[in-house]
């Protein structure tokens, strides 16, 4: 129990919070921690979607571009007078459709996911440019209801935080209790065994991309409504933070292993660092290097437990090699 990744990560988060509290005690006040959680909500939601993809041995680098495109569409629909519930439905459906494009290319054509999503990453952002000719949609062009919904307080937390809580709970149930959720792990753990167990590997990977896309679409609305601006480059490079959250959370990049708690804590770890840097007086320009270091440390720590794959037949040859 003590050696599990989740425990180590939880301890790391506590140590981190303790170190921050030494410099700035107000950071760990419950109200501030709630604010940090709210601020980290988009990262948590995307990290869960990414987790579904990564456990199937794939990777989705297009999530941030998907988010930006869906966010822009949400803002445009809002400008056209579409009611909010319909906008929410539309962005989730559009996000799922964009995810399905990735999924189909991986499933039907067998193209490695990293190539597919590196490509669609630029294509999705390019489409935003084609739609808007590079123009921004600013706060005054959005209706009040559109902007207010994620911030609306409900039982002491903003709606955005509740959405994150709902996604965490729903995703945890889905991944533990549904056949598809278990299939994701089976496909990533041992694709050949999964085939013999009657699981369609490609279709399961396709489903993972659709889930990741749908969550990215939802986050697209939240992002645009919260920051009250939509343009081509919103959430630029955010896909790296999402992958980083998963890696820090102990989601094995080789597939087949990982937990919801891990992904959520990985995202929170990055979120705490991001929010703490200004209050402890470190330039925000440090954040990129710190998350890079966190990825490297996490992948090194996580790989210890996995052990070398395959039997060593010739010990000497192995040593020399």
């Amino acid at each position, binding site marked *: 129990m003590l050696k599990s990744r989740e425990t180590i990560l939880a301890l790391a988060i506590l140590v981190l919070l303790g170190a921050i509290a030494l410099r700035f005690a107000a950071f760990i006040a419950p109200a501030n921690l709630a604010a940090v959680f709210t601020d980290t909500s988009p990262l948590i939601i995307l990290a869960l979607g990414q987790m579904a993809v990564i456990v199937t*041995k794939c*990777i989705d680098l297009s999530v941030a571009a998907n988010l930006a495109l869906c966010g822009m569409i949400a803002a445009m629909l809002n400008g056209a007078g579409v009611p909010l519930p319909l906008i929410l439905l539309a962005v989730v459906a559009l996000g799922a459709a964009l995810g399905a494009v990735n999924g189909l290319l*991986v499933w*039907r*054509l*067998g*193209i*490695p*996911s*990293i*190539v*597919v999503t*590196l*490509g*669609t*990453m*630029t*294509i999705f*952002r*390019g*489409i935003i*440019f*084609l739609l808007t000719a*590079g123009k921004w949609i600013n706060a005054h062009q959005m209706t009040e209801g559109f902007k207010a919904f994620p911030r609306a307080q409900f039982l002491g937390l903003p709606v955005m935080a509740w959405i994150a809580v709902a996604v965490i709970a729903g995703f945890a149930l889905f991944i533990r209790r549904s056949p598809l959720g278990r299939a994701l792990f089976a*496909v990533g753990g041992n*694709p*050949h065994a999964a085939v013999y167990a009657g699981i369609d*590997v*490609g279709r399961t*990977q396709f489903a993972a991309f659709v889930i990741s896309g749908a969550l990215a679409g939802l986050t697209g609305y939240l992002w645009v409504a919260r920051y009250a601006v939509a343009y*081509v480059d919103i959430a630029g490079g955010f896909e*790296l933070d999402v*992958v*980083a959250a998963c*890696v820090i959370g102990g989601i094995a*990049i*080789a*597939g087949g292993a990982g937990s919801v708690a891990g992904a959520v804590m990985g995202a929170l770890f990055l979120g705490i660092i991001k929010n703490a840097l200004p209050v402890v007086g470190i*330039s925000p*320009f*440090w*954040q*990129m*290097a*710190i*998350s*890079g*270091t966190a*990825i*490297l440390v996490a*992948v*090194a720590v996580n*790989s210890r437990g996995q052990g*070398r794959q*395959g039997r060593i037949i*010739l010990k000497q*040859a*192995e040593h*020399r*090699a």
Partner: protein
Amino acid sequence: MSNATTPQQAPGRHIPDRLQSPLVRGLKSWEALLAVVAVAIFVANAFASPYFLDPWNLSDASFNFTEKALIAFAMAMLIIAGEIDLSVASIIALCSTVMGVAMVAGAPVWLLVVLGLGTGLACGAFNGLLVARFGLPSIVVTIGTMSLFRGISYIVLGDGAFTGYPADFGWFGQGYVWWVFSVELVLFAVMAVVFGLLLHRTNFGRMVYVIGNNATAARFSGVRVDRVRFILFLLTGVMSGLAAVCLTSRLGSTRPSIATGFELEVVTMVVLGGVSILGGSGSIPGVVIAALVMGLVTFGLGLLNVPGIVMSIIVGALLIGVIALPRLWAMWRK
């Protein structure tokens, strides 16, 4: 790369009774198809814009691809060996930053170049150490170092920039060796030959293919797999350093956002050149032609006033398209 691949095995290859002659094989190869595409784009461009055929314009166009191609040669070998390095653009940023710091401290031009290449080498060694020595997956390691290396540039520079490089330093990115042949273009040609010989004519090159096809078998055949992988990361780092020298010299300034997105274009160039993203096959001539194709497309579209972000859609579509089309074709013929 072995980690993010789909589990389907490549279909068994049909083995013919006798081999085709080298000439026929050459004509049917990916490289030949690509060369035809390159010529077609060249001709189309020549008709589309009256300014295209001017030798100086063509020389300017070469700057679109030379720096990326320098990295692509090393990246091709890395991908053939079944690894990948997504941190190359960030290595450029870090090298450029180190050169900037040295320039402000008053370092002479030769020292700037040495520091640029040395920083690239150190970054490559760091990646190589983590992948080859500690056995970590190269995708995650280089996604991490992608953040780390550029992050260090941001720590040093913040939202500032280094400008005011000495005039002599401009030679690498702006100088000409003879007539319209720029220093970068000559470097590109020399490195194409060096890497072509290294991959296709040396034992080391054969080892790269062996590792990419079956790393376990390679190990049992006495290939020092980890050492070869380490050297490949070193090469990629040094070539990124070289690209950083050229790019910094050409721009005359260093910002932490320098070369953003280069990794995508470099990987696209390599894959377009016929290198299998799963490792094990590909060639340097293919990458050279792919570099020319991408340079010509970008330049031609630029002459037609197509904005940069639309070009990046085309690059993204090319990346997926060149892999998807042959597979669609194979599915359709079945």
